[in-house]
């Protein structure tokens, strides 16, 4: 365990020196209080204070389009399986998104292992950034215990005024420290500053649900026939926005994209959504989740129940993106509260 500090006025030196070596991506401000992970060359471009980006860092680990196979059918079904990857440094990842990346890591390292994901993930260095304030009223990180870091980074930065307190978690993180020579040793006064911040955070990041997240799977056990699914199903537009912006949604489709010669081409993996009407349809015409209420329920269970059975882990990170993006104002907080209420009435 090693803790260092980086003076704030050295941040630009850090980013520009990293950008000389590798692609650096970080949160960048867009219009209408939106943020996006994008390539940066200097610290000026980065928003150190940001609410969850439109798309989570998932887009670098599981790109929306990725080539799995390149083929040539001039003579039979010739093919090569390929992986596309980019060496990069992901700077400024909040704790909710670190939890999202950890969830994806578990899914794609489950057997049979997904080499495309696993090779790509090891080319990405992650520098986390602590949230000092609650981003907005949609976040539920306090419920999901993701308001404090739970690993999953190489370096972790906490903004403590005129310096960052830095946790060096891996050798890859230590290499950055060695190569850039911008970090300084920390002492107990820095540690105290961190404790003070964490103390203040305890007042800001409050679980207002009245239950611990460990109780949620039991509530879901009794909620299969809850009227809430019809209610939100009636409002849902099946647009798939919630799954696109979710840091742990990983359902996909596989498609062939022929080149103009119609002989060569690629087999690609693209993001798909369990909210799409045809997602669970089979060739014979049967649709196993035809109703929007069934699809809505499926998605909630895939966050709060099924992954807990399979991986002992919640696949809701509390980032709030699904609620922020929903065109029909379906709220994760309201849905959970409703289920908690129904359950306590039983």
């Amino acid at each position, binding site marked *: 365990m090693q803790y260092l500090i980086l003076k704030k006025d050295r941040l630009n030196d850090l980013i520009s020196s990293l950008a000389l070596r590798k692609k650096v991506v970080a949160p960048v401000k867009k219009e209408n209080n939106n943020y996006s992970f994008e390539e940066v060359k200097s610290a000026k471009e980065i928003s150190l204070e940001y609410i969850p980006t439109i798309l989570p860092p998932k887009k670098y680990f599981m790109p929306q389009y990725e080539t799995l196979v390149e083929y040539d059918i001039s003579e039979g079904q*010739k*093919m090569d399986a390929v992986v*596309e990857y980019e*060496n990069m440094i992901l700077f400024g990842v909040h704790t909710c998104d670190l939890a999202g990346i950890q969830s994806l890591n578990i899914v794609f390292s489950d057997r049979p292992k997904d*080499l*495309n994901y696993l090779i790509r993930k090891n080319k990405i260095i992650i520098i986390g950034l602590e949230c000092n304030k609650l981003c907005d009223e949609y976040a539920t990180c306090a419920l999901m215990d993701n308001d404090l870091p739970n690993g999953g980074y190489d370096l972790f930065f906490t903004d403590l005024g005129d310096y960052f307190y830095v946790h060096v978690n891996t050798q890859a993180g230590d290499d950055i420290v060695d190569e850039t020579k911008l970090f300084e040793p920390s002492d107990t006064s820095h540690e105290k500053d961190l404790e003070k911040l964490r103390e203040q955070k305890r007042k800001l990041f409050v679980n207002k649900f009245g239950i611990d997240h460990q109780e949620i799977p039991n509530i879901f056990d009794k909620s299969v026939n809850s009227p809430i699914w019809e209610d939100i199903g009636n409002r849902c537009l099946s647009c798939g926005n919630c799954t696109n912006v979710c840091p742990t949604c990983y359902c996909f489709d*596989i498609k062939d994209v022929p080149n103009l010669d119609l002989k060569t*081409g690629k087999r690609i993996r693209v993001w798909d959504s369990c909210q799409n009407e045809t997602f669970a349809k089979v060739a014979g015409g049967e649709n196993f989740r035809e109703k929007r209420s069934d699809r809505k329920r499926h998605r909630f269970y895939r966050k709060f129940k099924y992954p807990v059975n399979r991986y002992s882990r919640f696949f809701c990170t509390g980032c709030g993106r699904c609620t922020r993006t929903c065109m029909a104002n379906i709220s994760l907080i309201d849905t959970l509260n409703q289920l908690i209420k129904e359950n306590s009435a039983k």
Partner: protein
Amino acid sequence: MNKEVIKNSEYKIKRSKIIKAKKLTEHEKFFEIALPNAECLDHDPGQFVEVSLFGVGEAPISISSSPTQRHSFELVVRAVGRFTNEMHKLESGDEIGIRGPFGQGFPVRILEGNDLLFVAGGLGIVPMRSLINYVMDNRRDFGKVNILLGCKTPKDMLFGDEVALWEKRMDVNFSCTVDRADPDWAGNVGLITSLIPGVTLDPNRTFAIVVGPPIMYKFVVKELLAKNIPERQILLSLERHMKCGLGRCGHCQIQDIYCCQDGPVFSYDKIKNIKGAI
């Protein structure tokens, strides 16, 4: 963006050869396929493969042949969509991609020594044939065998030659019914459920194997339970869209079950309380 070739990707296909192709009915075509270098597919009855045609895509297809046939395997494909219509254009000598086999097939080791009641509706005979022919090839390892077969009309019947053999064998009880008869049909007319009450069986040592269209399961299971067959001895093969075959893409998911890895064969006791399973 960097790119590397990966040698052992799960998405790698085996370049396989169609060694026989034959139209069975207006909509169904039979393919016998050999893997490269005379490799054996080494599947369990009830498993499936992902069939690939680059430029068109991939589709999960049930294996129809018994694993006792080692040099090749067989598929029967109904032309219903883009992929299957393209597949119907293929003939003997054409190359095709294969991934798999995938999933949990019929638990042959558990079935050994027991009586078997096969209930196949429509295209259900295609995957079921992998087990029926396995049982025929290892006939003395099993108890009594009853085969119930249902199809829409007599001309929809697949594998007529083999069905005729099953009918003739002294070690198999065979019954068949059609939903709609034609003038030459002298057999039963009615749904497959109508054949079940007439079967003589010892429920404690009978395993029922049911494969058919999704709508069929509820009604068949009801009849089997009425025969006192224990829930865990009723085996069903569920149809879902197994897009990747690797337990990941989400299309075949039923609650927290991935049909492609945990199934497609399930015993009734495991799925009876799972909403949306049958």
